């Protein structure tokens, strides 16, 4: 491999046969280019899916209540179950460390007004930990804190678009906004990657809304996230535990499916990532197919090269070239062309993916790119492909009888 004379021979042969070298190199470069671009786009597809679901924390569990469908322990069927503040305390007590974050949610449709501007919005009354469950980004001011809940402060954190709609260019922080005629002080402005609807929400402390509207302890739903250390099976067990705890508390039949409903984003996430992985797998196979087409075509070219050089190889053999030196010569040339051309194709492809960036976001491709390990594997594959493509013609070349070879023109 490090025989300088052999390299000299190869460079001379390449230099004197530029067209066929170019054709071979071009095919390989194209193959690798298509492979890399497709693979990168496959990654982009996966990124899109990931982004869709990364709006909410992927370990979120949502608990909702409904009507019972079975009579149980003296209660009739069709009873509406209503969660209360103490349910959260109950879950925290029973599940302990398994819970990462937990928050109540109450929804209220409101008419919001600041000076002359007004509009209809939804208030989401929550606990402080809700910020982490929904991945809410506070752009200005602060989010609801424990004190706000404890003191039932009349404050709100408004979405970026709420501020834009009602306040225009005026800063909203510290101003008072009227919700159904009651004034709240704006303490923060947030944004959310979940889209426009998420950014038209208004967050308020759960206790404040409970006090103002009928002074109850009712809550509409419970959002929580599980400790990621639990893993898939731990998370599934936790979902079962939540159902069991709440069913016991509200006297609900074990088989009742609609009174307590638990939805886990995790399930959806897993399912969708599987779908994305499958798509990526298909794209990968298309890429590998292309690469093989490239390999076959360089093999073809090497067969042609050997045919073209039959006479020369025959002369070399007459002068004392051993079969292994002939194989080495052809193989080394093939590997070198494949590796260099392939690497060139790879660089162009990486550049193309870079340029593409998020330009194809409308087609569900986000930030297409390939990682280092893919590049390393592609390089190894290239050398392998070059060796395979070169070996069969090289072996054929080594078997050429000098007498026969030199007769050919």
């Amino acid at each position, binding site marked *: 491999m490090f025989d300088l004379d052999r390299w*000299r021979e190869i460079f*001379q042969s390449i230099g004197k046969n530029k067209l066929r070298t170019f054709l071979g190199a071009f095919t390989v470069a194209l193959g690798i280019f298509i492979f890399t671009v497709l693979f990168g786009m496959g990654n982009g597809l996966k990124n899109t899916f990931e982004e869709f679901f990364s709006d909410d924390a992927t370990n979120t569990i949502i608990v909702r209540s409904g009507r019972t469908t079975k009579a149980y322990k003296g209660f009739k069927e069709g009873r509406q179950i209503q969660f209360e503040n103490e349910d959260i305390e109950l879950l925290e007590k029973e599940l302990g460390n398994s819970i990462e974050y937990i928050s109540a949610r109450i929804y209220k449709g409101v008419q919001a007004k600041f000076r002359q501007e007004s509009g209809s919005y939804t208030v989401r009354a929550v606990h402080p930990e809700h910020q982490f469950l929904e991945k809410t980004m506070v752009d200005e001011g602060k989010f609801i804190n424990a004190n706000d809940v404890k003191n039932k402060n009349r404050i709100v954190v408004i979405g970026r678009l709420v501020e834009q709609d009602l306040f225009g260019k005026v800063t909203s922080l510290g101003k008072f906004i009227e919700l159904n005629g009651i004034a709240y002080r704006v303490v923060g402005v947030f944004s959310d990657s979940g889209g426009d609807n998420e950014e038209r929400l208004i967050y308020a402390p759960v206790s404040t809304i409970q006090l103002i509207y009928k002074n109850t302890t009712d809550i509409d739903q419970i959002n929580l996230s599980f400790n990621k250390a639990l893993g898939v099976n731990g998370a599934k067990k936790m979902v079962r535990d939540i159902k069991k705890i709440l069913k016991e508390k509200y006297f609900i039949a074990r088989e009742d499916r609609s009174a307590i409903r638990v939805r886990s984003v995790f399930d959806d996430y897993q399912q969708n990532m599987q779908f994305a992985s499958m798509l990526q797998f298909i794209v990968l196979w298309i890429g590998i197919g292309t690469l093989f087409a490239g390999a076959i075509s360089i093999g073809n070219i090497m067969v042609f090269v050997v045919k073209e050089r039959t006479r020369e190889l*025959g002369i*070399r*053999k007459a*002068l*004392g070239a051993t079969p*292994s030196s002939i194989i080495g010569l052809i193989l080394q040339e093939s590997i070198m062309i494949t590796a260099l051309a392939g690497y060139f194709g790879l660089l162009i492809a990486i550049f193309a993916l870079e340029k593409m960036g998020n330009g194809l976001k409308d087609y569900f491709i986000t930030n297409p790119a390939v990682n280092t390990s893919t590049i390393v594997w592609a390089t190894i594959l290239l050398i392998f492909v070059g060796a395979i493509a070169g070996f069969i013609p090289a072996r054929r070349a080594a*078997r050429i009888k000098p*007498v026969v070879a030199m007769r050919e023109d």
Partner: protein
Amino acid sequence: MIKIEKLHKSYPIGKSSLHVLKGIDLHIKEGEFVSIMGSSGSGKSTLLNIVGLLDGHDEGNYYLNGQLIRDLNEKKAAILRNKFLGFVFQSFNLISYKTALENVSLPLYYKGVNRKERLKIAMDYLDKVGLKDWANHLPNELSGGQKQRVAIARALVTNPKVVLADEPTGALDSTTTDSVMDLLKDINNEGMTVFVITHEEEVASQTKRIVRLKDGVITSDELTKAAKAV
């Protein structure tokens, strides 16, 4: 140097086979200048290929430099060719993209001589055939006679035991034929064994021994006037 006993060779042609050499006995000693004469189809090229280890034989014994040649694999044959034999072909068989100097030095590459040494020796041999000034020219920039002289330099460069020439003047006009034959004579006079195959009486008569071949058998084997004169 070359000793052949009852050599037979057939080539398969379809289902039957063509019996080309039918029991050849030939002994060539060191320093001889031998020509094999015969019309086309007499088997002379086949004989040269067997002697040159470019092809195998079916029956009989062949000793090269005292060594029995039998069931050689490609690698051994290649090494023996490189060590003992130098080839000159009718169609020159120079590598088209290499200069005269590179063509001459190629056998030394396969012998494992380093580049610097190789080019020095090759240049000496080019000088010997009178083409030192053409060292960096490609074959297509040379005349037929010059090409054959490059080929002869290439055949000599490894200092072989025997130079095998297959119709060395077949593609040349009469003037260049003479100059090539003079060169071969000079080489022989320096002690090299030269083995020429030809169908031209002119050429054969300049060697020292003529072996006539017809239909795969030797019909005559005699010394020429040139030999008697020495």
